[in-house]
Structures are given as structure tokens and as C-alpha cells.
């Protein structure tokens, strides 16, 4: 039986990537943990940024993890949805802004 590309149980095994490369794995997770500490931005704000980026990169593990993280932090669903719309706006905008290139080429090549 073929294994599905994505399995929710795999999220719990994320830390296992360190097994095959202890130095890089350890460095990554140390860095990851430092990133989410309170700083100029609060951990709460960082959690919402992570949720938005998770949707932008369409990572099901990250969406699962940061929805649950938000619930634990008391982040409400309207706040989460606004974060997702930020991701959608930037993704949509990223497509649309290329329309300028299309217009430039079109105009240059047209008589």
C-alpha cells in the first residue's frame, strides 16, 4: 500500500531529522526556538506571522501546529482568519504585480 505524501503523525517525528545530521539539526532547532522567543515582536505576534506564512507555503504540518499554538495562546478565530487573508493578499498580489511585466511587454511589442 502506498504511503500518503502527508501524514499528520509525521509532525511528531520532525525532531528526528536531527538523527541523520545531529549538528545541523540541533542548530536548526536552537535557531527555531530563539526565533519564537519574546523580542521586539511578541511571541503572540510571531505565532500569527507563522500561521500566515504556513498558509503561504501551504505546509499542512505548520497549519496544524500554529492553529493549535494560537488556540493555546488565546488567539481568536477572527485574528487567525485575518492573518490568513494577509497571506492570501500577498500571494495574490505577488501574482497580480507581475501583470505590470505583462503590460510592459505587451505595450513594447505592440504597434
Amino acid at each position, binding site marked *: 500500500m502506498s504511503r500518503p505524501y502527508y501524514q499528520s503523525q509525521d509532525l511528531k517525528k520532525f525532531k528526528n531529522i536531527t538523527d541523520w545530521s545531529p549538528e545541523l539539526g540541533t542548530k536548526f532547532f536552537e535557531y527555531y526556538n530563539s526565533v519564537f522567543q519574546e523580542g521586539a515582536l511578541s511571541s503572540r505576534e510571531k505565532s500569527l506571522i507563522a500561521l500566515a506564512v504556513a498558509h503561504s507555503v501551504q505546509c499542512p504540518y505548520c497549519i496544524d501546529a500554529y492553529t*493549535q499554538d494560537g488556540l*493555546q495562546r*488565546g488567539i*481568536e478565530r477572527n485574528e487567525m482568519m485575518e492573518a490568513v487573508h494577509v497571506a492570501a493578499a500577498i500571494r495574490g498580489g505577488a501574482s497580480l504585480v507581475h501583470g505590470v511585466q505583462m503590460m510592459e511587454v505587451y505595450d513594447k511589442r505592440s504597434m
Partner: protein
Amino acid sequence: MPIKSLQSRSHLLSSTQAQLQWLENGIFKPGGLPSFAAKVNDYQNTPLRPRTLEILQLNLGYMCNQVCTHCHVDAGPDRKEMMSEATLEKALDLIRKTSIKTLDLTGGAPEMHPYFLEFVTQAAQLGIQDLIVRSNLTILLANKKYADLPEFFKTHNVHIVSSLPFYKKEKTDRQRGSGVFLKSIEALKRLNAVGYGKPNTNLKLDLVYNPSGAFLPGNQKSLELEFKKALKTDFDIDFNQLFTITNMPISRYLDFLIASENYDEYMESLVEAFNPAALDKVMCTNTLSVRWDGYLYDCDFNQMLDLKVNHLLQHIDDFSAVDLLNREICVSQHCYGCTAGSGSSCQGSVV
């Protein structure tokens, strides 16, 4: 949301045996997740034992004016169990004869007990350091006979600990019933008005947060800041501390976990979050819980599963502080709730 207790609906999970079956089987069968007893043994090589007796928690009865979806007591207006006058007298005797620092009155809604005022008045004269009443807040508005309670609490320097699962209406009402949030806000204003939760009054008003769903509570300090900011800005309400409490897989919350197909994942998350530092500070090592009928338990959760103290002296009539310290604490898989993450107790997180 349910409008009646599991008991009055003759729900399967109103049986403590049925609840324990869930906790002992399924993903905790041999070869599955480790039992709590095995986990404790891994870390300290001995079963859990009490260290001292500092907190006496009396459950005055299961009657409550609310029917909350997560209630581990299965409390509600239809529950008639009440502590007798004789048992209340025994409890006062017990306090006189021991060096208990904290008396913690819970329920149901403890204020609904017919001898509540009399009992608190007497208990307050016994020199206890901390006399706690766990108030659901809405009881203060439920009937005019409760309207004077804020003044009464103030007179006897009662420490109020109240559930408020969120600082907004939607989540609170979904868990505790329609209209509960605004009534709770009004009750908090009345407590603030007599000095509770205000700076320099020594009248302590603490709130209890528990997650509105199948997830663990976040950081206690961060949530406290969020609560303080929101309640002050939106309603000009002050309080002292926020206690975060993990929902225990017992009674109505267990029913929710099973019905919503979250049980396995929730239990896995509790086991994964096991924290040995929290194990060192679990409340059962310094607490004794008394049921309405006088039976003794290691904690309120064991009371709801009817896991009586593992000792020959199981009733308040036979109470002996020294003898009862010599016992093993009864555990099952619900105990993972107290050792997950920063830990959980009736006084909030423990590490």
C-alpha cells in the same frame, strides 16, 4: 450544549467505572502509551505518596446553577448531593486539630449549600491562612438571597477563585452557557466594588482559565497579561492572578473528547507533554479532598472517579492526619493532566 447533567440523562459516562474503562484501555492498553503509574515509576522508582497535608478541599455538593460543557463534576441544578451538617462539623474539628493552611470550598456552586454562610463564618474564626471559595460568579446574580455575598466574603476575608474561560463572550458562553459571560462580568464588577482584586485591599480575586476545547493551556503569565489588558480596557475590571488549569479527561469533558473524536490525540498530547518537574509538585502530595458524604480522596478529580484514598481510613469520621500520610496516591491516566507542560493544579500551573 447539554442542558442537564450526564447523570440525569443516564449517560454511560455518568458511571465512574465506564470512565475508568476508557482511561485504562484504548491507547493505554499494553504495548500502547505508558500508563501514568509506569511513567511515575520511570522517574522516581516509587509510587506517588503524599508529603504533607496543607490543603483541605471540601466539595459541599454537586448542585450548581450552571451546566458547563467541560465540568468534571457533572454538576447542575438537578444534582441534589449535599454535605450534611454533621460532616461539616467534622470538617471544622479536623481543621482545629491539624495545621492545615488552606481550606478550599468547592462544588457545584458551594454558595448553594444551605449552611454555607454559617460554615464560612465558623471556619473563618479558625485561623486558616487561606480560606478559598470557588465561585462560578453567576451565582451572585442568580437570586437576591446571594446579593450580599460580596460583602459577606469581604467581612470574612474569603479568597475568591472564579472560573472565566475567556475574556470575551463567545468562547465563555459556548463553554459555560448562554448569557454567562455578561453575568460574570457584572459579578466581577460587584466584587471589585467592595475591594476585591483592587490594589492594597488584601481581598484576593483570582480567575481560572481552562481551554475551550481539546488543547492544552498556554503560558499562564502571558494569558494573565492578555486577560488583565482586555478586562481592564473593555470593562474596567481588576483581578489578582490568573490560574491556568488543564482540562481533565473526566465526566463531561471526557464525553466531549470522545464525541468529537479528539480523545486519542488529546491523551497523546498530555503524555508527550509530561514534565517531571511538574510531577514533583502535583497537588495530591499536599491536598485531601472530601466528598459531600464524607469520603476522602487524593484530589477532586479522583473524587469524581470515585477513587477513594488507598487507606483503611477512607472517611472523615475516621480521619487521622498522621496515618493518612502513609498511603499511595491512586492514579490513572487522567493524572497526566496535572503533569503536562507547566503542570496544573487547583492553584494553576506549578512550574
